[in-house]
């Protein structure tokens, strides 16, 4: 027979729970529960008003994969993520280099750079939609005055009205809101590179480009990898830009998988849950890559 633990011992063993418990409960209710509920819903037949009408087996998935637009939506999601992240990283590499230099007013310019990061993506998207307005949009006015547009008000003045012109604009806005964080992450990475490495490169007579390519970039790689992965997550999950500017229209021609999921929610919650599970599966893969690359354990002080 084991000795009965005293009250004090029990209290001691439960002590971590008192401090960590509330956080665990919050994560369980807000993060874990929805995942379970989402997976469960994806196998149920649910009416538009939320009434469960019994099991549906794999029917929701079958219906989802049979959707005429499903293939296009998935391809578009990949293009969306790759294009936005690639452009963001390239532009941010340049900007980080620029804002790492010394010049008068650097603080103010760096401060200006954070605006799109701090502001709600919804507000930024509303502003771009306004600036692209066919009749009074500022961007269209500039295009007209540059001779790129015959007149305001026509179909040519409505870039968001056709998929071929809407998609580049949506990508541009996504890059616009992603660049600030990425640039700041790269600036933090640049700050960790010791000055004597550059001195050494200079002594060896390396050109500016050569120094950048063989000294700066390799040393910047950890920051670059993490920033890129965080961006992949953010862009994949980005919903407001497309929702505010085009709603995925015309047709489903600007819809990514998260937009498609949301549109399906209005007609068939079960099918929408199936789309969510597919999305979630992709997020899991991304998280796994992130954990593998980031070696998170080294950072936690023991």
């Amino acid at each position, binding site marked *: 027979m084991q000795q009965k633990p005293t009250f004090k011992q029990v209290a001691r063993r439960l002590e971590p729970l008192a*401090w960590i418990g509330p956080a665990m409960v919050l994560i369980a209710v807000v993060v874990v529960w929805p995942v379970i509920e989402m997976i469960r819903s994806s196998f149920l037949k649910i009416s538009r008003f939320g009434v469960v009408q019994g099991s549906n087996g794999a029917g929701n998935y079958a219906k989802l994969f049979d959707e005429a637009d499903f293939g296009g939506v998935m391809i578009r999601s990949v293009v969306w993520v790759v294009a936005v992240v690639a452009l963001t990283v390239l532009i941010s590499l340049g900007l980080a280099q620029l804002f790492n230099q010394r010049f008068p007013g650097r603080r103010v310019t760096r401060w200006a750079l954070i*605006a799109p990061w701090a502001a709600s993506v919804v507000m930024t998207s509303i502003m771009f939609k306004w600036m692209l307005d066919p009749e009074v949009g500022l961007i269209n006015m500039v295009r007209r005055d540059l001779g790129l547009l015959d007149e305001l008000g026509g179909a040519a003045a409505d870039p968001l009205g056709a998929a071929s012109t809407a998609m580049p604009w949506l990508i541009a806005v996504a890059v616009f809101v992603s660049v600030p964080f990425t640039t700041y992450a790269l600036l*933090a990475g640049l700050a960790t590179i010791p000055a004597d490495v550059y001195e050494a490169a200079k002594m060896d007579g390396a050109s500016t480009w050569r120094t950048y390519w063989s000294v700066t970039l390799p040393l910047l790689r950890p920051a670059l990898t993490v920033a890129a992965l965080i961006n992949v997550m953010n862009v994949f999950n980005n919903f407001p830009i497309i929702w505010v500017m085009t709603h995925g229209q015309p047709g489903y021609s600007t819809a990514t998988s998260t937009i498609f999921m949301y549109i399906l929610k209005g007609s068939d919650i079960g099918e929408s849950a199936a789309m969510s599970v597919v999305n979630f599966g992709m997020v899991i893969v991304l998280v796994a890559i992130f954990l593998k690359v980031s070696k998170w354990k080294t950072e936690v002080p023991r």
Partner: protein
Amino acid sequence: MTRSPAGSRRRQSPRRAPASLKQVLLAASAYVIAFIFIFPYLEMIIAALRPKEQQREAVYLPDSFNWGAFVDFWSGGLAGNLLVTLEVAAGSTILVLLVALPAAYYSARHNFRGRMVFLFLVLITQMFQPTAMLVGIYREFFQFGMVDSVWSLILVNGGFNLAFAVWILHAYFASIPRELEEAASMDGSGRFGVLFRITLPLALPGVVTALIFTFIAAWNEFVVALTLTTTPEKQPLTVALNSYIGQYQVDWQSLFAGSVIATIPVIILFALIERKVVSGLTAGSIK
């Protein structure tokens, strides 16, 4: 702030003395880029200040500026939506602080079974965003009967911003030497006395960062609110402003006045913590 001698010597380096063409170009391009990045928000302010009759006129700048939209904002329906936004942002911030502070403190100070599991779980939640599990969130709160409730928004926003707060507070607590606390407890302060009088004040920058970050994130949140609120009066500003655009008779002035009110304060708040946010977001990853 004292400047290190090395820093001041570098400032006097010969390259800085005459402003070379390269430097002028450098500064000029930085100014242009900075301007591009704040431009949409400047345009937002200009649009809000346009007089009503010039609201839909294709002119770059209106003939006069008019503050009326900001006055009207308070009497219009959007003021109620601003209140919802404030409630959600403040509520989430309080919730996150109440939950994250003890968790971060304890996991930074004590080694207990499950500590790594807890920190791992926190890191995972930081990676997840509500968008991917929206249907699950909707189903859950639908079953709770908490659709259209401020509390559901506070819970979800708190839950998804918990990780950042735990992570940044954990780093601050871990950086405070244990000896400091031990010395204080030898002076006769109790455990909580030490926590409140020594540790928390030292970790204050971290607390402020976590506080502002959560507030801004909850203030800006869109997709969860879009899903969990259906009554227009119960929607926070982001959702309300977006649905405004879809209406036939759009009151553009109110729309932009609302946008300015929703945007400018958070940009200023964010500028205060900007330096610490990068380290919090990439925590556990850069080595």
